[in-house]
C-alpha cells in the first residue's frame, strides 16, 4: 500500500515540477470554452442549451490530451520496466498514476466549471449538477484513458491511435454527464444520471486498472 502511495506522491511531485501539462489541460478547457460563443454567436438561449454539453466535450478532450503522457515518460527512461518488475501489483500502479493524473488535470477543471457555466449562461439549477457530474465522471474518463495509454505506450503514432481507441468508450460517460445538467435544468432532477455516472465509476475502478495492467505487462515483455 505504501508503495502505491509513494507512486502517487511521485507522480504528483513530477507533475508539479513540470507544471506545463496540468496547466495545458486547464487552459485548453477554459480557452476552448471561451472560443465557442465567439464561433457560434452569443445568443444566451442557445448558449444555455448547449453549455453543459459543450463543457463536457471540452473537459473530455482536455482529459484525453493529457492522458497520453501517463506512461510515456516512464517508458522512455526505463522506470516503467522497473515498476513492472518491482513486485507491486500492476493494477495498483495504474490506479495510483491515474489518480495523480486526475488530481492534476481533471479536478481543477471540475472546480473551474461553475464559473465557466455561468459564462455560458447555463441555468443555475444545472450548474451544481454539472459540477457534480464532472466530479463523478472525469475519474472514469481518466481510468478509460489509462487503458488506452497502456495499450499504446511505445506505439507508432500513439497519440492518434489512443484517440481512436478511447473516444468511443468515452461516449456513455459523456451522454450521462451532459444529461445530468440538462435534466436538472428541466426540473427532472439529475439524480438518475448521477447514479449512473457513479455506477460507471464503480465498474471502472476495478476493471480499468486490471486491463491496463495486462496491457502494460505485455508492453515490457
Amino acid at each position: 500500500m505504501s508503495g502505491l502511495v509513494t507512486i502517487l506522491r511521485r507522480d504528483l511531485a513530477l507533475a508539479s515540477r513540470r507544471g506545463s501539462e496540468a496547466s495545458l489541460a486547464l487552459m485548453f478547457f477554459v480557452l476552448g470554452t471561451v472560443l465557442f460563443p465567439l464561433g457560434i454567436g452569443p445568443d444566451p438561449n442557445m448558449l444555455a442549451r448547449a453549455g453543459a454539453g459543450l463543457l463536457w466535450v471540452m473537459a473530455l478532450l482536455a482529459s484525453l490530451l493529457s492522458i497520453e503522457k501517463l506512461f510515456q515518460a516512464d517508458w522512455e527512461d526505463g522506470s516503467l520496466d522497473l515498476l513492472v518488475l518491482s513486485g507491486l501489483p500492476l493494477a495498483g500502479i495504474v490506479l495510483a498514476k491515474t489518480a495523480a493524473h486526475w488530481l492534476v488535470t481533471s479536478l481543477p477543471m471540475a472546480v473551474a466549471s461553475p464559473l465557466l457555466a455561468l459564462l455560458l449562461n447555463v441555468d443555475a439549477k444545472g450548474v451544481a449538477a454539472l459540477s457534480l457530474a464532472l466530479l463523478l465522471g472525469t475519474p472514469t474518463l481518466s481510468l478509460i484513458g489509462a487503458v488506452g495509454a497502456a495499450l499504446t505506450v511505445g506505439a507508432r503514432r500513439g497519440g492518434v491511435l489512443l484517440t481512436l481507441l478511447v473516444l468511443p468508450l468515452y461516449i456513455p460517460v459523456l451522454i450521462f454527464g451532459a444529461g445530468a445538467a440538462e435534466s436538472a435544468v428541466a426540473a427532472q432532477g439529475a439524480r438518475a444520471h448521477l447514479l449512473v455516472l457513479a455506477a460507471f465509476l464503480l465498474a471502472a475502478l476495478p476493471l480499468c486498472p486490471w486491463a491496463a495492467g495486462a496491457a502494460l505487462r505485455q508492453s515490457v515483455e
Partner: protein
Amino acid sequence: MHRFANPNRFLRLAAAIVPWSAAAAVLLFGVGLTYALVLSPPDYQQSETVRIMYVHVPAAWMAMGAYAFLALASAVAIVWRHPLADLAAKACAPIGAGFTAIALVTGALWGQPTWGTWWVWDARLTSVLILLFLYLGYMALWNAFDDQSRGARAAGILALVGVVNLPIIKFSVDWWNTLHQPASITRIGTPAIHPAMLTPLLLMAAAYVAFFVTLLLLRTRAEIAARRVRTLQIAHSRGPAAAAMHEPGYS
C-alpha cells in the same frame, strides 16, 4: 480446438472447405440477387427502395456477428494462448469493417428516400458507427508495433474491452434519444417483414455468411504464410547454422 493448433492441419481443413464455401457463396449470391432484384415484390409503402434492405440488413447482421467472432477468437488467444486464434481474429477484422461500412452506406441510402434523412442519431445507427471505429482501432493497433506479438496482445485486449462497451454504448444512446426526442418522432427501424421478402433476405444473409467463411479462411491462410515469412527472414539473417536452430524440431 487444440487439434487445429498445428497450422498444417488447419491449412488442410481450410483447403477442403474453401472450394465448397466459395461455390456456395456464388450460388447463393446468384439466387439471392435474383430474388432481391427481380422476383420479390416492391413494398406497399416503400416501393422499390425496400430492395436496399436485402443488402443492408444482412450486412448489419454480419458486422455484429464478425465482431462477436473477433472477440471470441481474441479471448481464446489470450486465455488459452492458441497460436492461430489471434491470426483468425486479425483476418476477420477487415471483413467485419467492410460489412459495417456497407451497412452504414446502404442504410443512409435507404433512409433518405424512405424517411427523408440520410442519418439520424438513434441508438442502432450510432452503435454501428462506433463499431466501425472499433474495427479500425483494432486494425490500427495490430500495425502500430514493430513486434507483432505485442500488437496481437494489445489488439486482443482492445477487442474484449470493446465487446463489453458496445452494449453500454447502445444503451446510453438509447437513453439519450428518449431524453432528447419527444414521442412524436417516427421510429426508424426495419419494417415488419412480409413473407415474400423473407426469402431474399435470408438468401442474401446466407450468401454473406458463405462469403465471410471463404474470405476468413483465405485471410487466415495469408496470415499464417506471413508469419512463416517473418520467421524465415529472421532465420536467414542469422546464417544457415543458426537457421537450423530456429525451428521447432530442433531440440
